[in-house]
């Protein structure tokens, strides 16, 4: 990761910076500086429900950093991932108030959902859907496009308002699935993961200690730490030595693809940094380079070459997957690695993304670079902080305060604190943060003054009974990897932290807890802007219709009727398409001329589904 390393070399690398454990909720904190549940994002947008902390709708009590900076003379641009728009409003005819331009951003170029095909992304520019500007065979990749667009936005601004500062919220689709990368970047990692994920954990732990990212004596945690009755089978890690030769080959290559995806994206970020340097802007630009959750375990124990299979409960088959091994990363696949790599890339911690009670779900890299404002170069900072602390840091540096009332609405206080004091602090100086509560998909935890209480409960466990959860206690200041449970030695300490968790949950609107399985959570019936109907009419020349507002053909029969009038014997092509080459259906009509004249135009449309 050359760009990340360069920025770290000229700035600071934080070793205890945490997120909410899931992308969309963390992103809400990066926008508002309030805890995810105050933002209505106890879960992802698609998991919204009719409760204050789970509405999936940013409330007017949580003004965004962009709104505040815009009001104070900044240009505000957003590139890449969003995932904070209510699903039913990801629509050309939908309400735009929750789109970026409704939240204080003057420009947007990216995608509104949680993930998108990196070769053929579902793009939105400002307030409308667009097609990608060119195709993969012409060199297109979303990471590259976002860098181009970021440079263009800043250049455009500088051409007319060179004295005006800007705020760019830049969110590549990487490293979320699908793992898509140019083959030359994937090839750079050939053979690097052949020893398997347990071996990788051992190797990287030693390396992290050597680099000072982890304290000496940090212990590895188990790869399957959850008790059997409290674990989710989909999150199980298959030991490397239990895999057959084909599985090892496939799983290793999946990690190579992921690494290539990472480095390619980092190289594109580097192009933006290079532009800032060449244009004389880098010196006074505060760069935050971070991630939004622990590594993803959504690949399940076996990974997939086409995540759409997983979405549809369509079993992955090793023989079929092996046929596509050389296509991984290309437009022909939509892959995700298995859970073993999620654990490995969350070394040394327990679990991964979604597990908010463990650092495997929350601990993420953070580098802050600001050549003009930070004297230290290439130093580590060990102060405990969280994604809610980024907005207060930005406002602090900008010399702006979050108002108590914004547009007539009394605001939630910021949940985070400024990290600016760390810029001039010693690497091991005490953190000024006192407490951080965690809650995600039934998982719970709380950190306070170097101690942490963690409820033993898997994400999507489906059992409920939260009042019966066992809690663990870790002294994080002395046991960074949360490897040794001290609950029995310090029961009073644990009881106090549990009590504090409930206080925080109340203040932060974090109840009720929901550990139901994903299908139950995602299948909740939500208010629609449109009354129920059984007939959907689509017209030519319109933008693609997003999933959340499209006709739902799941679990039911349906008819598709097309009125097609052709005036040209050579006319032909796609009439209707649903999904993509990786799963869906297509209706097309052949050119009439090719099959015998105008009469053929009355012939049925041909349908195909991969």
């Amino acid at each position, binding site marked *: 990761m050359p760009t990340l390393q360069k920025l770290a070399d000229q700035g600071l690398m934080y070793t205890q910076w945490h997120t909410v454990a899931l992308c969309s909720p963390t992103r809400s904190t990066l926008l508002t500086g309030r805890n995810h549940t105050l933002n209505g994002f106890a879960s992802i947008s698609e998991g919204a429900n009719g409760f204050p902390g789970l509405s999936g709708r940013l409330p007017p009590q949580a003004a965004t950093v962009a709104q505040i900076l815009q009001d104070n003379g900044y240009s505000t641009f957003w590139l890449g991932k969003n995932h904070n728009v209510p699903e039913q409003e990801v629509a050309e005819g939908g309400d735009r108030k929750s789109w970026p331009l409704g939240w204080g951003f003057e420009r947007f170029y990216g995608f509104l959902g949680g993930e998108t095909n990196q070769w053929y992304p579902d793009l939105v520019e400002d307030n409308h859907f667009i097609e990608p500007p060119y195709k993969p065979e012409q060199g297109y990749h979303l990471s590259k496009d976002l860098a181009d667009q970021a440079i263009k936005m800043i250049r455009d601004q500088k051409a007319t308002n060179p004295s005006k500062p800007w705020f760019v919220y830049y969110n590549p689709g990487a490293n979320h699935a699908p793992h898509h990368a140019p083959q030359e970047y994937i090839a750079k990692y050939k053979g690097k993961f052949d020893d398997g994920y347990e071996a990788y954990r051992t190797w990287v732990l030693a390396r992290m200690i050597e680099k000072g990212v982890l304290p000496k004596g940090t212990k590895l945690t188990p790869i399957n730490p959850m008790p059997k009755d409290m674990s989710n089978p989909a999150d199980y890690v298959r030991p490397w030595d239990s895999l057959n030769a084909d599985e090892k080959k496939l799983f290793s290559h999946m990690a190579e693809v992921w690494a290539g995806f990472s480095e390619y994206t980092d190289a594109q970020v580097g192009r933006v940094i290079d532009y800032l340097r060449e244009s004389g802007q880098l010196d006074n630009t505060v760069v935050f380079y971070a991630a939004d959750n622990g590594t993803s375990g959504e690949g399940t124990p076996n990974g997939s070459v086409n995540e759409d299979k997983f979405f549809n409960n369509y079993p992955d088959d090793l023989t079929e997957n092996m046929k596509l091994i050389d296509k991984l990363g290309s437009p022909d696949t939509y892959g995700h690695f298995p859970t073993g790599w999620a654990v490995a890339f969350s070394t040394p911690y327990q679990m991964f993304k979604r597990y908010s009670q463990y650092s495997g779900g929350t601990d993420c890299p953070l580098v802050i670079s600001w050549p003009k404002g930070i004297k230290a170069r290439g130093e580590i900072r060990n102060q405990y902080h969280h994604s809610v602390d980024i907005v207060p840091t930005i406002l602090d540096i900008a010399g702006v305060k979050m108002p108590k009332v914004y547009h007539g609405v009394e605001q939630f206080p910021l949940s985070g604190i400024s990290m600016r004091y760390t810029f001039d602090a010693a690497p091991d100086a005490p953190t000024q943060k006192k407490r951080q509560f965690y809650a995600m998909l039934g998982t719970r935890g709380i950190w306070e003054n170097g101690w942490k209480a963690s409820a033993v409960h898997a994400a999507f466990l489906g059992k409920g009974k939260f009042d019966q959860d066992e809690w663990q206690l870790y002294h994080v200041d002395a046991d960074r990897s949360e490897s040794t449970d001290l609950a029995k030695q310090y029961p009073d300490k644990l009881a106090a932290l549990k009590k504090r968790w409930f206080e925080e949950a109340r203040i932060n609107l974090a109840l009720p807890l*929901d550990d139901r399985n994903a299908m139950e959570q995602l299948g909740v019936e939500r208010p629609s802007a449109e009354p129920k109907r059984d007939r959907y009419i689509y017209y030519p020349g319109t933008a693609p219709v997003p999933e959340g507002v499209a006709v739902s053909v799941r679990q039911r029969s349906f008819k598709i009727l*097309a009125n097609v009038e052709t005036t040209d014997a050579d006319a032909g092509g796609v009439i209707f398409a649903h999904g993509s080459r990786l799963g869906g259906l297509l*209706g097309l009509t052949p050119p009439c001329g090719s099959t015998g004249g105008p009469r053929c135009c009355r012939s049925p449309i041909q349908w195909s589904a991969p």
Partner: protein
Amino acid sequence: MNRVTLKLAPGLPTLLSRAVVVFGALLCSLAMAQTAKKPAPSSQAVGPYKDFKGVIKLDIRDSKADWGPFTPKKAPAGAPTFSSSSTTTPVSPPGRRSAAG
């Protein structure tokens, strides 16, 4: 006019149900069965959501959602649409409705 119409036939299972599902399902698990419900010990204040009419307990299974405060206002059924148009200079001078007028 060219158009494509989809007509749904409710309740009839089909293989096409495997078509395309939302992104969020990626998080899905080999879901374990929901178990017996038990009254939760805690409920919660709702901050500024004074018009929230749901019930909040520790477990969502014991709670009741209310979408009211989180649902955007809709225009009434049959509400008219509007088109406001204004040329940049008068098409004809004031008081003259046509070239002849």
